[in-house]
C-alpha cells in the first residue's frame, strides 16, 4: 500500500493556509447585485398583504420578490416537501423568509427591506412540544397527524419489552431533556445565482448536498435539471447545517431570473443562527432492563422531538432516535415511540451524529446505572452485552465489521480505568460510554436507479489523473480521500491527481456529504474506476514486455512484473502505449448499496447501512462542588473506522467530534423567549473555548470492513456519540449525581448537588459513593 493508510495532509490545505482558497463570498462576478431577505418578526402569523411598491421605486433596487413568485414546495425529503422559497400565506417562525431584494449595493438592499410593507395578522404561536401535541384548528403545516402539530409518529416493537422487564432483575426508567444546539460553522451561508440570457441558471453555494440543491432548484424554478449548473466552492464547515436545499438559494435564483444578473446573498451571523437546522431539542423517556447476570433484557424508548417550522430531515430524525439504539449492545426486546412536532421556532435539522446523539446519551447513562444495580464494572457490563461482528440485530440491521470490543479494551487500558474508576477523590471522576452509527444510508432519499456515488477518471498523455465527483469536500478531507483511493490501485504519486468535485456540469452525480457516506460510497466508486485504468495499464505493459498480464502490479509509478521485478515499465510508458490509437483513458466507477438489505416492516429502511461504526470513550473530569463547574481533563477516544485511509483526517474528525460533543455536554444551548432566540451570536452561544479543550488521546481501531474501500468506514459522525454520556458518567463517578439534562451547566450541577450533597465521610470516597447507590428495582 502506498497511498492508503499514510498520514496525508489535505490536498487543499495549501490553498487554505495561504488564504487563496475561494469560498462563495470570495467570488465577484460582473454586474453582480446584492440580495437581502426580509424576515418575519413574528413566530406565527397570516400575511394579510405585502406592498413592495415603495421598495421597487427606490433607485438602485433591481428586483423585489415575494411569496407570490412561486408556491412550489420543496424540502430535502420527498415525503415532507413543506417549504416554499418565501412565505405564501403564513409565516411560521421568527426569521421566515417573506421577501427578497436585489440591489446595486448592500445599503440600498437593506433600505429597501424597510420599505416593504407587510401587514400580518398574528396567530397564537405553538412554542412547546406539549402545545404541539394538542389538536388545533390551524396546524403549522397541512400534513400532520390527527389535527395536531405532530409531523411524524413512529411506533416500532420487536420482541416483548413488557415481558422482558417483568423478568428483569432491575429496570431503570428515567426522563432526559436535551437543549437545542447548532452547528456553528464559521462560514456563514452564501449563495450566488446567475440566470443568464441563454436561459440557464448557475448557482454557486456553500452546500454539502449540491445534488439535492440541483433537484430542488429544478422543481422550484420549473426548469430542466440540465439547464441548471450547481457549483460548490470551498465550504467553511457544515456539520449537517448545509445539507438542506434552502429558501435563500431559491430567492437568489428568483431575483436573478428577474434581473438576468448575478445575485449574491450572504447571511449575517444572526441569520445563520435563526435559520438553524441544528440538533432537535428533545424529551426522552427511556427504560432499560437487566437480568441478574448483567444482560440487557430490553429497551423501551419514547422520544418527543421539536422540529421547529419545517420538515427538513425530520422524518429520518424521528426514526434515528429509536433505531440507532440497536447497537453496539444486543437488544432482543425493543419498543420505540417517537413523535416529531412542528413548532413556530427555528427549524431543526441534521447535525453531526444526526438523530442518534440524544438517545445515545440516555442509553449510556442507563447502562451505567444498570451496571451499578447488578454490581458490575461499567466496562465489564458493556463488554458482556456487545453484539458480535457478522450478526443481525432484532430489527434486521446487518452488522459486519465490529471493533467495539477492542475499542472498550483499549480505552480501559489507556485510561487506567481499573486503578481510577470509583477510586478517585471526591470531585474527580472517570466515566465511559459507547457509540454506534451508520456508515452511509443504504437507501437513498430519492427512489431512482442512479447509483449513490459515481466517479469518473480521465488520464491523458500528460500523465495527470483527473477525478470527477460531486462528493462535497466540506473540510472533512473527502477530496484527499478520493485521491488516495485512486492513487492506491494505480501505484502513483498523489500529486499526479487532481480532484474536481465542485461542478455539476462536469461531475457525475453523488448524493453529497451527509449520513457519513462519502468515504464508503464515493471511495468505493473511485477505487473501482481506478481499477479499470489499472487493467488498461497492465495490458499495455504486457504488450510492451511480452509478459502475461496476470503477474503485473502497479507501484512506485511503475508497472512491475511481480515474478521478475527486473521487468517493468514506467507508468508514463505504459500510459502512452495504452492511449495509442484511442486517446485519453477514461473510466467510471459507481457504488450502489446492494439489495436486499433489512426487514420488510414499516420503517425497515431507516438506519440501514452497508456498515456501521463503533466507539468507546472514557472521560476524566473534575467537578467543582462550589461552583458546579465541570472541567474535562482528558478524553480517551477509541473509534472503529474500519481502516484509516488518512490517519490525519480520521484523527482530526475525532478531535473535532470531541470538541463539538463537549459543547453540547457542557455549554451550548439555544435560549428562546416567545419564539425568539436570545443568544443568536457566537458570544452568547458558547462553543467550548480553547482553554477548556481537554487532551484527547485518539485510539484508531481498524476492524477492516469487508465492503468498505480498502476496509474503511466513516469517521465523521459516530465519534461524537460517546462524548456527552462519558462526561455524565464521569460526573457521577466524581460527585455521585446523575445528570439527565443537557447541557450539564454549572447551575444544573449545583442544583443536583443540593439534592445529593457530598456524603459525610469523605475519607473513603469510593466506598461512600458506592454506598449512596440504591439499586432498588424500579418500576413505572
Amino acid at each position, binding site marked *: 500500500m502506498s497511498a492508503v493508510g499514510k498520514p496525508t495532509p489535505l490536498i487543499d490545505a495549501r490553498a487554505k493556509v495561504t488564504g487563496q*482558497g475561494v469560498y462563495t463570498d470570495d467570488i465577484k462576478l460582473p454586474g453582480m447585485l446584492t440580495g437581502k431577505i426580509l424576515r418575519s418578526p413574528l413566530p406565527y402569523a397570516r400575511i394579510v398583504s405585502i406592498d413592495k411598491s415603495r421598495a421597487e421605486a427606490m433607485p438602485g433596487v433591481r428586483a423585489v420578490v415575494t411569496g407570490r413568485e412561486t408556491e412550489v414546495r420543496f424540502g430535502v425529503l420527498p415525503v415532507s416537501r413543506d417549504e416554499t422559497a418565501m412565505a405564501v400565506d403564513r409565516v411560521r417562525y421568527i426569521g421566515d423568509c417573506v421577501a427578497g431584494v436585489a440591489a446595486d449595493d448592500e445599503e440600498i438592499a437593506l433600505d429597501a427591506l424597510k420599505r416593504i410593507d407587510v401587514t400580518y395578522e398574528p396567530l397564537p404561536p405553538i412554542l412547546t412540544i406539549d402545545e404541539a401535541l394538542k389538536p388545533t384548528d390551524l396546524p403549522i403545516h397541512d400534513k400532520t397527524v390527527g389535527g395536531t402539530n405532530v409531523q411524524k409518529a413512529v411506533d416500532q416493537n420487536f420482541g416483548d419489552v413488557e415481558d422482558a422487564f417483568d423478568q428483569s432483575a432491575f429496570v431503570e426508567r428515567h426522563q432526559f431533556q436535551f437543549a437545542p444546539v447548532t452547528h456553528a460553522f464559521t462560514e456563514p451561508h452564501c449563495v450566488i445565482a446567475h440566470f443568464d440570457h441563454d436561459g440557464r441558471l448557475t448557482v454557486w453555494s456553500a452546500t454539502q448536498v449540491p445534488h439535492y440543491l440541483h433537484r430542488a432548484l429544478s422543481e422550484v424554478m420549473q426548469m430542466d435539471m440540465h439547464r441548471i449548473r450547481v457549483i460548490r466552492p470551498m465550504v467553511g464547515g457544515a456539520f449537517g447545517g448545509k445539507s438542506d436545499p434552502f429558501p435563500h438559494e431559491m430567492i437568489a435564483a428568483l431575483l436573478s431570473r428577474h434581473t438576468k444578473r448575478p445575485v449574491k446573498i450572504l447571511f449575517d451571523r444572526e441569520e445563520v443562527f435563526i435559520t438553524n437546522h441544528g440538533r432537535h431539542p428533545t424529551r426522552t423517556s427511556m427504560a432499560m432492563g437487566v437480568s441478574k447476570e448483567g444482560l440487557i433484557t430490553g429497551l423501551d424508548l419514547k422520544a418527543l422531538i421539536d422540529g421547529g417550522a419545517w420538515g427538513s430531515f425530520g422524518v429520518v430524525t424521528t426514526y434515528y432516535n429509536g433505531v440507532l439504539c440497536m447497537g453496539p449492545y444486543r437488544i432482543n426486546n425493543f419498543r420505540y415511540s417517537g413523535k416529531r412536532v412542528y413548532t413556530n421556532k427555528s427549524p431543526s435539522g441534521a447535525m453531526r451524529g444526526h438523530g442518534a446523539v440524544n438517545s445515545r446519551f440516555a442509553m449510556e447513562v442507563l447502562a451505567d446505572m444498570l451496571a451499578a444495580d447488578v454490581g458490575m464494572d461499567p466496562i465489564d457490563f458493556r463488554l458482556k452485552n456487545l453484539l458480535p461482528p457478522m450478526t443481525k440485530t432484532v430489527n434486521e440491521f446487518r452488522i459486519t465489521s465490529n471493533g467495539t470490543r477492542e475499542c472498550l479494551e483499549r480505552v480501559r487500558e489507556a485510561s487506567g480505568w481499573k486503578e481510577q474508576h470509583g477510586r478517585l477523590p471526591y470531585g474527580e471522576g472517570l466515566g465511559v460510554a459507547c457509540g454506534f452509527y451508520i456508515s452511509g444510508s443504504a437507501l437513498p432519499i430519492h427512489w431512482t436507479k442512479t447509483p449513490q456515488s459515481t466517479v469518473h477518471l480521465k488520464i491523458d498523455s500528460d500523465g495527470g489523473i483527473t477525478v470527477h465527483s460531486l462528493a462535497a469536500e466540506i473540510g472533512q478531507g473527502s477530496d484527499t480521500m478520493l485521491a488516495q483511493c485512486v492513487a492506491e490501485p494505480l501505484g502513483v504519486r498523489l500529486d499526479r491527481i487532481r480532484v474536481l468535485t465542485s461542478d455539476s456540469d462536469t461531475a457525475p452525480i453523488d448524493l453529497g456529504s451527509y449520513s457519513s457516506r462519502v468515504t464508503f460510497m464515493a471511495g468505493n466508486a473511485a477505487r473501482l474506476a481506478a481499477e479499470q485504468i489499472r487493467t488498461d495499464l497492465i495490458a499495455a505493459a504486457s504488450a510492451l514486455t511480452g509478459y502475461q498480464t496476470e503477474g503485473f502490479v502497479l507501484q512506485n509509478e511503475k508497472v512491475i512484473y511481480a515474478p521478475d521485478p527486473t521487468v517493468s515499465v514506467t507508468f508514463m510508458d505504459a500510459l502512452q502505449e495504452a492511449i495509442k490509437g484511442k486517446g485519453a483513458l477514461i473510466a467510471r466507477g459507481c457504488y450502489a448499496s446492494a439489495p436486499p438489505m433489512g426487514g420488510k416492516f414499516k420503517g425497515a429502511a431507516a438506519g440501514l447501512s452497508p456498515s456501521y461504526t463503533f466507539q468507546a470513550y472514557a472521560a476524566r473530569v473534575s467537578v467543582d462542588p462550589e461552583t458546579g463547574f465541570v472541567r474535562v481533563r482528558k478524553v480517551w477516544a477509541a473509534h472503529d473506522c474500519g481502516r484509516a485511509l488518512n490517519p490525519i483526517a480520521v484523527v482530526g474528525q475525532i478531535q473535532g467530534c470531541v470538541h463539538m460533543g463537549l459543547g453540547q455536554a457542557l455549554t451550548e444551548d439555544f435560549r428562546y423567549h416567545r419564539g425568539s432566540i436570545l443568544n443568536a451570536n457566537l458570544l452568547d452561544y458558547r462553543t467550548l473555548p480553547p482553554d477548556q479543550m481537554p487532551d484527547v488521546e485518539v485510539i484508531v481501531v481498524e476492524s477492516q470492513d469487508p465492503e468498505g474501500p480498502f476496509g474503511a468506514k466513516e469517521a465523521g459522525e459516530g465519534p461524537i456519540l460517546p462524548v456527552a454520556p462519558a462526561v455524565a458518567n464521569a460526573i457521577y463517578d466524581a460527585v455521585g449525581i446523575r445528570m439527565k439534562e443537557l447541557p450539564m451547566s454549572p447551575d444544573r450541577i449545583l442544583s443536583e448537588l443540593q439534592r445529593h450533597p457530598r456524603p459525610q465521610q469523605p475519607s473513603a470516597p469510593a466506598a461512600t459513593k458506592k454506598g449512596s447507590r440504591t439499586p432498588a428495582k424500579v418500576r413505572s
Partner: protein
Amino acid sequence: MSDAQAKATDLYAIRRARAVPRASIEMTVNGARHLVSVRPYDVLLDVLRERLNLTGTRRGCDMGTCGCCTVLMDGRPVLSCLTLALEADGAAVRTVEGLATGEGLHPVQDAFVRHGASQCGFCTPGFIMTAVDLLEKSPDPGDDAIRAAIAGNMCRCTGYVTIIEAIKDAAAVLRTRGSMVRR
C-alpha cells in the same frame, strides 16, 4: 406627479442626504502602499476584502466573535471587522496573503498543513495571523500562552488540538532557523 414618482423623488432626496463625506486613507498592506477613499463607518475588513481584493481575510460574524478576520496592524492582532478603516490611516497592515514568499510557505502555514490544523480552512487565516504575532513576540510559548493567544479565534472543526500542535511545531522551526522575522 404620480404617487410612485413622488416617492421616487423623495428617495432621491434621501439618497442625497445619505451621501456621506469620504476621506482618503493611506496604509501599507503587506508592504504595498494603498490610497483608499473610505466612508466614516467603513471597516478595515471591507477595505481588505472588497476594495483590495484580499479575500484571504474571512468574514465570519461582523461582530468580533469569531476571529476569522484577524489581521496584524502595526504589530498587533486586530479584528478587522471591528476596526474602522479610518483607524488604519497610516498603519502597516499584514494579512495572510503577505506571509508566503516566492520561496514557500511561512513556517506557521507549513505547520498548519502538516498537522492537519486546517480542515474547512475558513478560520485558518485568522489563526495563522494570531500565531505569527504570538511567535514574533514570544518564540517559545507554552501551551497556556498559546491557548490564551488563540482565545479570540474560533474553530469548529479541529477542537484546537492540531492548531496548538502546529503552533508549537512552527515555534520550534522558527527557533532553529534563528530567523525570527520582524517586519
